[in-house]
């Protein structure tokens, strides 16, 4: 549906997009994820047609969009500020894009009503836009784009202005809406959780380049670079060095975890000399309580910090022999005590949950 072929964008001396090549499938919920300044919004705006590209090509539905202005592209955008026209009513806002539509006024107002109903704003037609809440403004912006039945809907951080509860609710509604209308959604976000929850596939961007393009689970379980792992969720890193590498297996000596054998599928980056690090998620370490036996490997550690989160408790623990603490999470199930700082404990882990970055 959308093909980006080696897209470059220069602003004077600043190289904002450095050769982006991505294909977004029809009907896909695709996210561009990255820290601010990584070029994700610029990339979205090149698809919309607001930023002319310096080189490369943008194709929508097989057609090259070079020189095609935004008003003639089959893509519509929901802006970060929502860009609701303040001097028009809700219905006039939603119907704005239908001005050049040859249908009769009655048919148009029916389309507007349907679009408003689709986003859950039935009977809002005559409302003054100034009286709308943030969530309602976001829905109006969505209806205004969807009423045109575009092939692609571009969403620039559409939920970043909402509070946490509202954001989570709107995420679910957006997923349902996307499945209902079947339009290709391209979402820009800096919120890794939002990207994981909503997307079919995610492109993680740093410094104008796509660092990894994968489905949420692959991205979370097998990040291909340390900075991707750090940006998507929480990951602990312990220094390690490679002892031997043969027969599809890598043997390591890791601080605090000792000697471990990893499959090559657990390794990111090619063979290289120098520093390597082993990464793992907080949920892959488990504290062993009285009488519990580790199913796989076990290490001794000292609790250095405890953060209680209600459903979860985060522990910072220092594995014996490690130079720094790592974070692990434990579910607070009934009857399980919350440990305090300074306590000695045993940690269960499995080599299968580790990942080597080099």
């Amino acid at each position, binding site marked *: 549906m959308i093909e980006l072929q080696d897209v470059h964008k220069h602003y004077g001396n600043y190289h904002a997009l450095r050769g982006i090549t991505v294909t977004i499938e029809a009907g896909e919920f695709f996210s561009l994820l990255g820290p601010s300044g990584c070029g994700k919004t610029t990339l979205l705006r090149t698809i*919309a047609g*607001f930023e002319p590209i310096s080189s490369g090509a943008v194709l929508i539905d097989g057609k090259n969009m070079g020189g095609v*202005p*935004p*008003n003639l592209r089959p893509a*519509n*955008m929901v*802006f*970060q*500020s929502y*860009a609701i*026209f*303040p*001097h028009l009513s809700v219905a006039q806002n939603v119907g*704005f*894009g239908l*001005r*050049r539509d040859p249908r009769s006024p009655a048919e148009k107002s029916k389309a507007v009503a349907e679009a408003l109903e689709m986003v859950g704003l039935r009977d809002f037609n005559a409302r003054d836009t100034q009286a709308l809440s943030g969530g309602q403004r976001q829905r109006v912006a969505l209806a*205004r*784009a969807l009423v*045109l039945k575009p092939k692609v809907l571009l969403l620039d951080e559409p939920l970043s202005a909402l509070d946490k509860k509202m954001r989570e609710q709107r995420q679910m509604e957006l997923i349902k809406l996307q499945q209902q209308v079947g339009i290709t959604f391209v979402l820009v976000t800096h919120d890794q959780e939002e990207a994981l929850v909503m997307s079919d596939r995610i492109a993680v961007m740093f410094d104008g380049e796509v660092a990894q393009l994968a489905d949420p689970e692959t991205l979370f379980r097998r990040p291909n670079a340390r900075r991707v792992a750090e940006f998507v969720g929480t990951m602990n890193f312990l220094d390690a060095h490679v002892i031997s590498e043969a027969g599809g297996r890598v043997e390591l000596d890791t601080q605090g975890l000792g000697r471990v054998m990893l499959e090559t599928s657990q390794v990111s980056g090619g063979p290289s000399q120098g520093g390597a690090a082993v990464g793992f998620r907080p949920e892959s370490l488990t504290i062993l309580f009285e009488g519990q036996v580790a199913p796989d490997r076990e290490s001794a550690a000292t609790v250095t910090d405890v953060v209680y989160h209600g459903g979860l408790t985060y522990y910072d623990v220092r594995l014996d022999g490690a130079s720094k603490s790592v974070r692990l999470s434990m579910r607070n199930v009934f009857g399980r005590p919350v440990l305090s700082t300074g306590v000695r404990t045993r940690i269960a882990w499995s080599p299968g949950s580790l990942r080597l970055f080099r």
Partner: protein
Amino acid sequence: MSKPVGLRTYSVLYLVFLYAPIMLLPLFAFNKSSVIAFPLSGFTTEWFAAMWEDGELFRALRNSLVVSGSTAVISTVFGLFAARAITRYRFPLKPGLAGMIMLPMILPNIIIAMSILVVLLTIGVYLSLWTIVLGHVLICIPFATAILLTAFRSLDKSLEEAACDLGETPASAFRLITLPLIMPGIISSILMCFTISLDEFVIAYFLGGTNTPLAAYIYGQFRFPAKVPAMLALGTILVVSSIILIGAAEYLRRRGLARAGGG
């Protein structure tokens, strides 16, 4: 806690000094005697009647309306271009150029009047109402630009982009979205420039040739003591209309800011 008496006295004196002369204008405009002096000798509206019958005054008024009206519209159009360019585009030497636009605001009018006069005489242009307009547009553009800059700055840039995204061309997006939203600023700028131009004396006097707009005409009439009360009557009307115009301009500017979501 004792109030600082000195400061309060200062404020009162300051306000009296500022506004008392203006208050005297209507006072003597309705005074029976043609001599401008206390005590007042009774109420009359004859000076307003005398003013009404003064044909030359109306010619001057007509001249002024032509000059101020044209100045207001032309300056606002130029201000619109300048303000949009400054808020929307990046171009070389932008701060310098923006400063140049604002310069006439602090340049003495007499210098502007003299230099334009010299140029006009050198290239052989006859002095007319339009040469006054030329001078007035120059001094009004900074005010128009400043007012419209606030209007544009309080406007969300993505509004126009959203209109383009929804199928409008840049021109129709400007007409349908930007123009209605900055309209209060435009009207405010027109009113402000109109008032400045109506008020301006030096440039009008230098560049008008034989065509006298109101300010220059009033100045001329003060040579005849018998005409003075009628001028005070005219002055009273001008003060009232100025207050209404500037008040309307400010009201519209604030309403425009509030509507565009700015501060």
